């Protein structure tokens, strides 16, 4: 079994599948073996090896006929927030115990139509609420990366931590994630991978378990910017079943990737230089600026004055929506039911047993901010802040084409390090949340290593539905950074 097959990029694998130098089946098998040998990472909730073999056989047949889709034969992992027909879908929560959907999310259906091969469902923070993957009912995912010379486990970030770890550990060629406040980009930054949160409305939310409906957006997690472009093309598209999906054409992202960034205006927002940001993060940011400048881009200082209100406003809006979205998990129709006493006791017992501490915390916050007498002071105020944040970005787009910032204020931290301090945990999203609040596309790519040898990410934020420019700038940074760090495979059982 060739391990080199698992280190391919999607673009390379596509080429080799296309010229039949490899088969989808052997590609799938090498990944299945990798997953089986990597259970120490706890990246998967469900492994679907049989399904992968069947998908691969279908892909090989289509490849032989010259009838290949965009992702034909590419083995991928799916965040367990996506409902997948006939496959356990848990959202990382006990309350969806045993839930096997009779339907397929639009995004995954799009991917299967394009020939992708399903390896399994990845672990995640419960209901996508978390920045460390420690809130999963199925236990924490471990980051494939460790500090050199230090055996302590690190978190992979969250909530798409299982997907990020699987991509970084070469257990799949790409994975889906979802991003409500940074849940694709922060784990991408923590694991040295590429994560793209598309524009709100670019990918259908139909069939994705809702966390915060006005913020949730699905996106690709890959090892290169080019692979993110390929995957997004397969995932995106208007869907009449999602009223917030936007009916705009999906461009061929890949075709503009290598275009020069010469003449592009890159905004550097002053407010993203937050007090206490480690010097090495600031230094990486400056390297990014220099790389783009060298590539002929124009660097422009901009101001997004309401940035500091984004995180507090986010922690009102997102829990408010979540408190309502999670009301359907009541033990009546599906998932967990703790039969006990009368109706109210059944509700209480079911939800007490089914939800973890972080989910309960957010339901309580959300319920509180929507309550009579508090609504105006919290929810309504937060919506006003949201408008101001969006206006900040609109102002910036008068002057620049994209924004460049760090993705996170720090590299991956240790398992258990922040579990008792929700606010410290929430601060991890401080640089990623504004793009969600404004619905803008944002990419994180690995751009260097910290002094302790851990990956660090840079973030590119663009105009609504201008993923093309975001990807193009990302590709320029990727080329310049030439990041080739790979975690040592300490987790492999064989």
């Amino acid at each position, binding site marked *: 079994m060739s391990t080199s097959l698992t280190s391919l990029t999607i673009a390379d694998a596509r080429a080799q599948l296309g010229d039949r130098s490899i088969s989808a089946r052997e590609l799938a098998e090498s990944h299945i073996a990798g997953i089986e040998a990597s259970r120490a990472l706890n990246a998967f909730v469900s492994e679907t090896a049989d399904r992968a073999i069947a998908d691969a056989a279908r892909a090989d047949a289509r490849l032989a006929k010259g009838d290949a889709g965009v992702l034909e034969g590419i083995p991928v992992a799916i965040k367990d927030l*996506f*409902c997948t027909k006939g496959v356990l*879908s848990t*959202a990382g929560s006990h309350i*969806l115990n045993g*839930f096997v*959907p*009779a*339907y397929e*999310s639009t995004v995954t259906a799009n991917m299967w139509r394009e020939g992708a091969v399903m390896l399994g469902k990845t672990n995640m923070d419960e209901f996508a609420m978390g920045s460390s993957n420690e809130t999963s009912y199925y236990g924490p995912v471990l980051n494939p990366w460790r500090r050199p010379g230090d055996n302590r486990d690190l978190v992979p970030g969250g909530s798409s931590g299982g997907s990020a770890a699987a991509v970084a550990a070469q257990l799949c060629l790409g994975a889906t994630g979802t991003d409500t406040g940074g849940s694709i980009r922060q784990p991408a930054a923590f694991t040295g991978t590429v994560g793209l949160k598309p524009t709100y409305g670019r990918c259908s*939310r*139909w*069939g*994705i*378990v*809702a966390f*915060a*409906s*006005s913020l949730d957006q699905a996106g690709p997690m890959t090892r290169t910017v080019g692979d993110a472009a390929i995957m997004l093309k397969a995932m995106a598209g208007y869907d*009449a*079943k*999602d*009223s*917030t999906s936007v009916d705009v054409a999906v461009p061929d992202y890949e075709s503009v990737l290598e275009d020069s960034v010469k003449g592009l205006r890159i905004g550097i927002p002053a407010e993203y230089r937050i007090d206490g940001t480690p010097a090495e993060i600031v230094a990486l940011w400056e390297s990014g600026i220099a790389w783009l400048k060298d590539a002929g881009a124009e660097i422009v200082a901009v101001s997004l004055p309401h940035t500091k209100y984004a995180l507090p406003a986010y922690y009102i809006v997102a829990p*408010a*929506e979540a*408190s*309502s979205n*999670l*009301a*359907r998990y*009541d033990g*009546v*129709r*599906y998932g967990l039911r703790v039969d006990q006493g009368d*109706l109210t006791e059944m*509700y209480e017992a079911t939800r007490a047993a089914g939800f973890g501490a972080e989910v309960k915390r957010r339901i309580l916050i959300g*319920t509180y901010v*929507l*309550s*009579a007498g508090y*609504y105006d002071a919290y*929810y309504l105020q937060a919506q006003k802040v949201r408008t101001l944040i969006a206006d900040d970005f609109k102002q910036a787009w008068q002057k620049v084409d994209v924004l460049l910032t760090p993705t996170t204020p720090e590299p991956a931290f240790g398992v258990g390090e922040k579990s008792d301090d929700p606010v410290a945990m929430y601060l991890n999203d401080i640089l990623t949340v504004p793009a969600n609040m404004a619905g803008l596309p944002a990419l994180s790519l690995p751009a260097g290593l910290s002094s302790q040898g851990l990956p660090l990410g840079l973030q590119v934020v663009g105009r609504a539905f201008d993923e093309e420019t975001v990807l193009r700038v990302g590709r320029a940074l990727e080329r310049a950074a030439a990041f080739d760090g790979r975690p040592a495979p300490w987790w492999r059982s064989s």
Partner: protein
Amino acid sequence: MGGTIQGATGTWEMVIGLEVHAQITSNSKLFSGASTAFGAEPNTQVSLVDAAMPGMLPVINKVCVEQAVRTGLGLKAQINLRSVFDRKNYFYPDLPQGYQISQFLQPVVGAGTVVLDMDDGRTREIGITRLHLEQDAGKSVHDLGPDRTYVDLNRSGIALMEIVSEPDLRSSEEAGAYLRKLRSILRYLGTCDGNMEQGSMRADVNVSVRRPGADYGTRCEIKNVNSVRFVQQAIEYEAQRQVDILEEGGVIAQQTRLFDSRKGETRSMRSKEEAHDYRYFPDPDLLPLEFDQAWVDEIASSLPELPDDRKARFVGALGLSPYDAGVLVAEKEVAEFFEEAARDRDAKAVANWIMGDLFGALNKSGLDIARSPISAAHLGALVDLIADDTISGRIAKDVFDEMMKTGRPPAEIVDQRGLRQVTDSGAIEAIVDAVMESNPDKVAEYRGGKDKLFGFFVGQVMKQSQGKANPKIVNDLLQQKLSG
């Protein structure tokens, strides 16, 4: 007149406002493609959205929006080109999402009016505060097993219009008239079938009492009353209950109450303190509902004639009394029956036949106008037979009874049974002569001043002619011969 209650301490006035939940006539639900047909097996008309499966999203059904706009236009109300769907959050097993999608701050329809025609001929204008769109809940079934509740989600997600009135109603009669009028308008518009017994129309009734001219009192809301009669009973009971409390020096606690139709009384469901906090907020799964004036105009141009306009036409063009016109337009089917029967005929005569004999006969046989054995065309033909003296009014009653029994056309009955009126004065004269000859003593008495005997002679002549003699000719001949 109802509406005021004479208490020991003086007069009290009732103040009533109604929130009517009207099920929109549409093939599919407000946010899903599932069917809305009534009476299906439990849980057979439930989409993934209606069952609130994880990741499911609502998509607005344009037909339901159109129906709401049509209704708003029928209520002469403001149409809001932009409105917003909100979530009303509460837990109940027949509410799968854990929230109802409704419209809270920005409804699709704003202020309008409904005109009431009271029995005494007065009209009353009742303000409509708003109309908004919302989802119905499913149904909890408590009586299928001793210790379990079952849930039927067929209703879950069906589109409702909540039509809220101003507190302009002052008596249970007015509340009843309002409900009947609203139902009539909805049926004319085709936006709700108005079947209260199937739950297509339900009312929440807000009742308070006050001294005439004083500020509004504290109100109680009686939930989910499902017939006009029950609404009126509930109001009467509730107003009296409140007066009794106030007269004893008590205060009214703001409450949500239930109406027990068996006992005819209301009882407390929950107090203000126990009221739900519904935590309304805009549904992030749905964009604001926006449409343009051109679309509204298009709907407006397809509105049917509404009861008030039709009544005005019946009075103005057909010469009916306002009362008769009001009765005839109340039900669209009756109005259409009347129009067909009265076409090119004496409208007043047709109206009398419908409101008198036909309503009476239908009522007796438990039929509605749609199932009347007598068609509009046949009723019109009967009126024609009277008008052209083919039969007398008295014979017409017999023909009508036969029509009611058999559904046959009146001319056929008249011919078959030989009921055609005798207008040949020679033939009638012969009968008159014969009657006078065989009753010489009565003729003498009459001529001696006993005028009352005239009726006796008419009766005898009619009897001899088997009722077919033209009454006017009979009268004229008798007058002439008896006095001679």
